[in-house]
């Protein structure tokens, strides 16, 4: 697998995402102003504060030259992972349903979150089991997932709610405790927690985040990742 990690002005988790992806394959950085995806097999839109979060989170990044290529790549079935700010960007780009709103308590929340894998058959969670718990950190101010009630019901029925905050310990007021969702085709996935910060027990509280990257490598390479 060769992953491409987008770097916007204001991205700050791009290198961690690259290092995490390099544990299961190759990974290069993709500059926001360059529409060339350099032949990558999958794209990661990382966390941070793209374009300073000006106007509305993800609103300006969504129109970056690289994003036009990422949108076309996703429409062709390419795997696209959005983490935190990347999730917000993918929602703004219309690649994922819904939007991320300010946390209901209005505070920045940095904590280890316990997640439940709701759908383990996506290309991003295939190395997990349904119902499995993952311990992965969150750190955000704008993480309250919102979609209209009818859309939420349809998404749940279709298995598009992929990750949920477990045990009702919802850190931001997300509707239906949603932590991560995928698109109808299953090739675009966004989540607020940071799997790239949980790939090594030496530097994180768990290595559970690696499962996401292993899943992607399996999906791309057609075999179990090392």
């Amino acid at each position, binding site marked *: 697998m060769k992953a491409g990690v987008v770097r916007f002005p204001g991205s700050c988790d791009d290198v961690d995402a690259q290092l995490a992806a390099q544990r299961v394959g190759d990974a290069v950085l993709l500059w926001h102003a360059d529409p060339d995806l350099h032949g990558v097999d999958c794209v990661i839109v990382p966390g941070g504060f793209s374009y300073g979060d000006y*106007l*509305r989170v993800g*609103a*300006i990044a969504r*129109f970056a030259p690289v994003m036009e290529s990422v949108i076309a790549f996703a429409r062709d079935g390419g795997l696209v992972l959005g983490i935190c700010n990347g999730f917000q960007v993918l929602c*703004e780009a219309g690649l994922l349903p*819904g*939007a991320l*709103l*300010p*946390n*209901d*308590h*209005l505070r920045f929340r940095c904590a280890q979150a316990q997640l439940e894998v709701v759908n383990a058959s996506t290309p991003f969670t295939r190395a997990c089991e349904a119902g499995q718990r993952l311990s992965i950190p969150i750190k955000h101010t704008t993480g*309250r997932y*919102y*979609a*209209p009630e009818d859309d939420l019901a349809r998404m749940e029925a279709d298995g598009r709610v992929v990750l949920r905050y477990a045990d009702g310990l919802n850190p931001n*007021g997300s509707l239906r405790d949603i932590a991560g969702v995928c698109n109808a085709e299953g090739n675009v996935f966004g989540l607020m927690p940071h799997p790239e910060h949980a790939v090594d027990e030496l530097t994180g509280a768990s290595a559970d985040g690696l499962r996401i990257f292993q899943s992607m490598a399996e999906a791309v390479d057609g075999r179990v990742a090392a």
Partner: protein
Amino acid sequence: MRARVLIRPKAGILDPQGIAVERALPALGFTGVSNVHVGRLVELDVEDPSDLDAMCRRLLSNPLIEDYEILEAWSG
């Protein structure tokens, strides 16, 4: 032409900023305040005001979560 666009959270969507302001005002002695919402104001010069609606839909607001109102568009 100078234009002014007001963007606010859609009715029915939890507005924690509005709630925070609503709770802060009584602490200063201002009673009888309710239904507070916090939005965003964008002021801009535009050559063609008929573009404003499209600007609001594509960039200035997210129609899923926000309403917009083109408050004023005036010459000068």
